[in-house]
């Protein structure tokens, strides 16, 4: 939607108010994606995980294996980024109530916590 050509084409067949509303919505959406949708810098994380503490990223990855699970706490899952070979451990709290299977692809909204823990805040199946 951010493409100008598509916007021009869409405006020819949609009322101006509607177009305006959609544009505002898209801008609002884009503004939100720009704040929490930054792709996760895998290599930077591998090189110095402490440098990324406190940051929030978006990570598209495929579930590789479940490493640990503790009831009431959550699970630690090894994911493999779609654009990288390195595996990364992420923590998914039980509160997310996610049903995860190996080889499923998800978009994870993660924050880098203390100690380099990739804490999944949101996940979305791709």
């Amino acid at each position, binding site marked *: 939607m951010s493409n100008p050509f598509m916007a021009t084409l869409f405006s020819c067949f949609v009322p101006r108010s509607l177009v305006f509303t959609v544009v505002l919505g898209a801008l609002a959406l884009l503004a939100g994606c720009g704040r929490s949708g930054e792709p996760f810098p895998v290599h930077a994380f591998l090189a110095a995980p402490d440098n990324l503490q406190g940051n929030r990223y978006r990570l598209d990855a495929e579930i590789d294996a479940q*490493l640990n699970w503790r009831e009431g706490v959550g699970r630690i899952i090894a994911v493999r980024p779609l654009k990288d070979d*390195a*595996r990364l451990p992420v*923590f998914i709290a*039980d509160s997310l109530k996610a049903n995860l299977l190996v080889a499923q692809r998800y978009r994870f909204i993660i924050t880098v916590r203390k100690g380099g823990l990739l804490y999944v*805040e949101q996940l*979305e199946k791709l």
Partner: protein
Amino acid sequence: MRCSLPIFIIVVAGLFAAHPAGAQSDSVMGGAAAPGKAISAGSTAAGMANAADAKPSSSDTMTRALNINSLESGTLLKIINQAFDTNSDSIDPENGTFNWKGHSYDIGQFRVFRGRFERYLSLPPTKDDTAYAETLNQITELLSTRNGDGAAGNVMEAWKLLYRASDFDSDGGNSLGVANQVFNAWRIRDEKQALTVAQNELEHIRKQQQGSVVYGADAIAAETGQTMTDAVSSAALLGNLSTGNATNSNTSSGTNQNNTNNQNTGNTGNTGNKNTGNTGNNRNTGGQQPKTGQVGNGGGPGPTGQLFRARELAETEAKIQALSVAGLLSVTQAKLQFQSQIMSLFLQRRFQHCLIAASFYRFIFKGSHQNLEVGKKELASFLPSSDLAFTVETIEFLAREAMNDVNSGMASVRASYDDNRKVAALERLQETFFLGEYLPSVTQFETSRKESLLLLYRKIDEARKLADLRDYDAVVRLNDEITALTSDFRGAEVNAAVRSAQRMSSLALSAAQQCAANGDYPKAQEFVEKAAQLWPLNPAIKAYTDNMASQANMGTQAALFFDESFKRNDYRRIYEKRAELAVVFLSDQLRGPQLKGVIDRMARVEIYLAQEEELLAQNNAFAAWEALVGAKAFAPDDVELNQRMAQLAPRVADFIGRLDQARRYEDAKSYAASLTSYLSAQDLYPASQLARVGVGRVTGMIMDQLAPAPAADTAQAPLPSGKDVAEPAK
């Protein structure tokens, strides 16, 4: 020795028969009982060696079984000494005496006498000995009452031959002593004859003087009217008084004084009588007779003359008595000297010289002088049951008896030698030699036989000394040689005794080894001492002591080596010497367990190293590395391990780096970062055990960190947005 030697043989044989029995009885009491018990002890000890729990009582049991403390080791030596004893029971080496017919001959120091016997065996008889023996026989023949009936010529010839015999070395000057004694007796006899002549002359004078006194007394009685008896009595009384003075001063000066008085008296009373008296008395040869004659004839017919005549008579009688006593003393002295010489020769075992001297004595002294005045006590010891008067013939009898014994003894020696019973021959020869050392039958014993017996004597003597030293190997060797030399040596008995001693020593040593193995070193030392006491040259003792010494030395060195290596964690050095150290530290309460732990560690390390080799052969470097890492936990400083890790590290450097990074993050409690590194390492080697274990461990840590406040974390966490994102639990 016709009587005594057989008795000797019987007694000695009886002793030999009794000694083994005694030894056997001793063995039953101590020696034989000990082996029997020792055998059971050996089996008991062996069984105990297998049973470790029986250690404390094993040594005590063995002590009781071996009965070492009550073992009479002297029994063995007694047997051996009996077998090698060349000394007859008639010889007392301690007192240096030799008994014959109940009398003890003093043979001086026994060692010296043994030397004489050995010298006798080693020296062959010479021609001089033969000539000497012939000379003595010739003397004996000349003095025999059968030849010439004791003619003076034979006696003189025999006396001259004594000087010839004395020239021989083997005579020892005894013939010269006899000859001198004979010469002395003859000289005394001549003196006695001279005294007899003088005594006869004095008797003649005394008779004349007695007649003069009687005549003077009769004349005075006729003139004065006194009775003859009174005159004689008064004259005799006065004469005795004067005679007593004259006798007391029985010297030439006294006599001269009397002569002077008589001359004065004669001149006063009757001048013409001096010449008459000289004429009548000068035919006497004695030096004093003329003066006495003067005295006898110098008295006048008066009372004074009668007084002097009586005194002269008394003086003459005193001189006769003095001569008689002097003759008797000289004869007695000569007799005693001769008898002493005869007795001395007999006691010196110079029996031939004793017979010769006795023969001379018989010719020199009359039959009434044959009773012995000296040496009665010595002779009584030879004939204790006799109360007869001892004469020179008694000594002759004993001397002939001794010579006969020696001759029969030498016959026995030859008979035993010819029967190849050389030990018996040697014993008989030694006995015979002690008695008849100077007799021809002994001195002229065959050289070949003496050499053979000397060889046997030396071997037996050497074997006896070796037995005293308990050098049993040498004793057995000599025993075999001696047994080959003669048929009557008790070699089997000696061998049995030696084997018994050797076996006892070996058993004691085995007990010592077991005690040492059990750590009871004082008891082991006691057993070793017993073993050495039984058989000092036991080669096993040397091996045992060397082993113990090396163990002690090795123990010290091993302790230093172990402590140093253990301190440096150089387990491989310890592991390479584990066999020696295990023996040394068997009873070490501290190092024993430490050594066991080291051996366990290094055994695992060796397994890992072997595994690493195999994995490398399979080109599985990551697995090989993990094997080395596994070994590293047991021996972090092992040189071999580190060398292999250094060799392998370049091939798995990335893997090692990730694992190392994971470890460092984990140590820094950055568990998530550590988990990332483990996963990274696992990506390189998916089968990595280290990574898998690390992942499991670190995820657990992460969970632990998240668990305490999961609700808070969840609350703090932003709520998920989007349609497909699952809602967090509220």
